[in-house]
């Protein structure tokens, strides 16, 4: 375990439903300082909803989310934005701003929240791009990038403000195995170099085992098991076993 054992993010009995559909039915999760937590689960079990609640994109119906001990579910937009400066988020498809070149995408947070001049922002953006293994792309537009490059630019944008917490929304989905491993490698490096706490959601078990300190399985709106990758592999829970082995037959109802 890297870092101390103090709790960075604490999710308590979180409930969220959409139009009568109860997606999260009491999620409890503790992420320690410096830890890499991976939440696994099938499509549509509410992994994205969970991560969006944590960064305040969605408001939960009930329950609590504490970041560094501060309750965020009751905050207004302005105070929430202060908390969000601790976060960086990598979106599934990158979510780069189409109308801005790569360097302005990476430097977006700096432009909005600091008084740095454009040249300084560009220099920082180039440095962050180099950190994710990209060079000479700063002047390109997002539409000119491949899928793997988009994700790396998005990662560069997420780390540009030097966040304490990184959230990864399915970081390897839609990439070929080699590019997926490049991203996994980057996520591991980010944790080592930047000492960030991270939460990743994924259904890619190769990725989960590579990047996780602990793995939590989300099923029917609850965390049903949580443990190290080793404990996860050896789990006696039939649901967890079915999921990590990727079998169609078993206790998980496929809809």
């Amino acid at each position, binding site marked *: 375990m890297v870092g101390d054992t103090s709790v960075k993010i604490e999710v308590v009995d979180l409930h969220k439903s959409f139009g009568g559909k109860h997606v999260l039915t009491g999620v409890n999760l503790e992420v320690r300082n410096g830890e890499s937590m991976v939440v696994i689960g099938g499509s549509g079990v509410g992994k994205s909803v969970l991560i969006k609640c944590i960064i305040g*994109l969605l408001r939960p119906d009930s329950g609590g989310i504490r970041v560094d001990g501060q309750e965020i579910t009751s905050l207004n937009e302005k105070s929430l*934005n202060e908390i969000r400066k601790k976060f960086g988020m990598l979106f599934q498809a990158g*979510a780069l701003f189409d109308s801005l070149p790569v360097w302005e995408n990476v430097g977006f947070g700096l432009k909005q929240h600091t008084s740095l001049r454009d040249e300084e922002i560009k220099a920082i953006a180039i440095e962050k791009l180099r950190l994710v293994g990209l060079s000479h792309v700063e002047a390109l537009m997002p539409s000119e990038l491949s899928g793997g490059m988009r994700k790396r630019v998005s990662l560069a944008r997420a780390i540009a403000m030097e966040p304490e917490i990184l959230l990864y929304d399915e970081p390897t989905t839609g990439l070929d195995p080699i590019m997926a491993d490049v991203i996994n490698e980057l996520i591991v490096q980010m944790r080592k170099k930047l000492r960030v706490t991270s939460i990743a959601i994924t259904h890619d078990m190769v990725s989960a085992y590579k990047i996780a300190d602990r793995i939590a399985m989300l099923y029917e709106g609850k965390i049903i098991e949580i443990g190290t990758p080793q404990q996860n592999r050896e789990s006696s829970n039939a649901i967890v076993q079915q999921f990590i082995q990727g079998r169609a037959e078993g206790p998980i109802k496929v809809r």
Partner: protein
Amino acid sequence: MNSVFGYIGSHFMRFLQESGRITMLFGQTIVFIFRPPFDVREPLSQMEEIGVRSIPVVVITAAFTGMVLALQSFTGFRRFNAETLVGTVVALSVTRELGPVLTGLMVSGRVGSAMAAELGTMRVTEQIDALHTLATNPVKYLIVPRFLASLIMFPILVVFADIIGIMGGYFVSVKILGTNPTIYIRRTWDYLELNDIYSGLLKACVFGMIMATISCYQGFYTEGGAEGVGRATTRAVVLSSLLILISNYFITALLF
């Protein structure tokens, strides 16, 4: 019987809900206009998009409207020997009514659809969520510049439309129908009051706010992928146009 009431009821509730959300978005936009930081670059580029690039559409619309107005009123007025009043009719119709309304409709079709499509795409590709995570308020960053640019450019476009429309009427009357140019111009100026132009410009401001608010609302709350973006775009244009026509009546009824 019950289901009929249920149907009407649920649609009415939806209507109220939507109206409420549009009003809230409008209110937020107004608040964020006055909250720093103030950005100039984005409103300016929107003004170019909404204003400068709309000029050809507005000019052609206004020119042919003024021309057909002259042609039609000439045909009518000739029946009781009042051909000389054509200039008055053209000037009043264009400045008070047709300039602002047709400009509003044409620009809504052109710009409102683009706004809804752009914001809708940003919504479904999570770019609006990304703005939130970068601690940036999307209303401030995306909607305020579009709203301001529309509010400023609509009246300016209407001034263009007024001038071109009156020139179109003059051209048809004088060059084609053979009206005396001096009389035509005098008839135009004698009866045209500054108030007619102001009222048209006031309408333009309201139409600009309607178009920007409705189109941004439709884009901002888009759901359901590419299909949703298409729906939002259509709704933006239809709803903006309808509200422009409806509000036009009430502004006219209230003020004049």
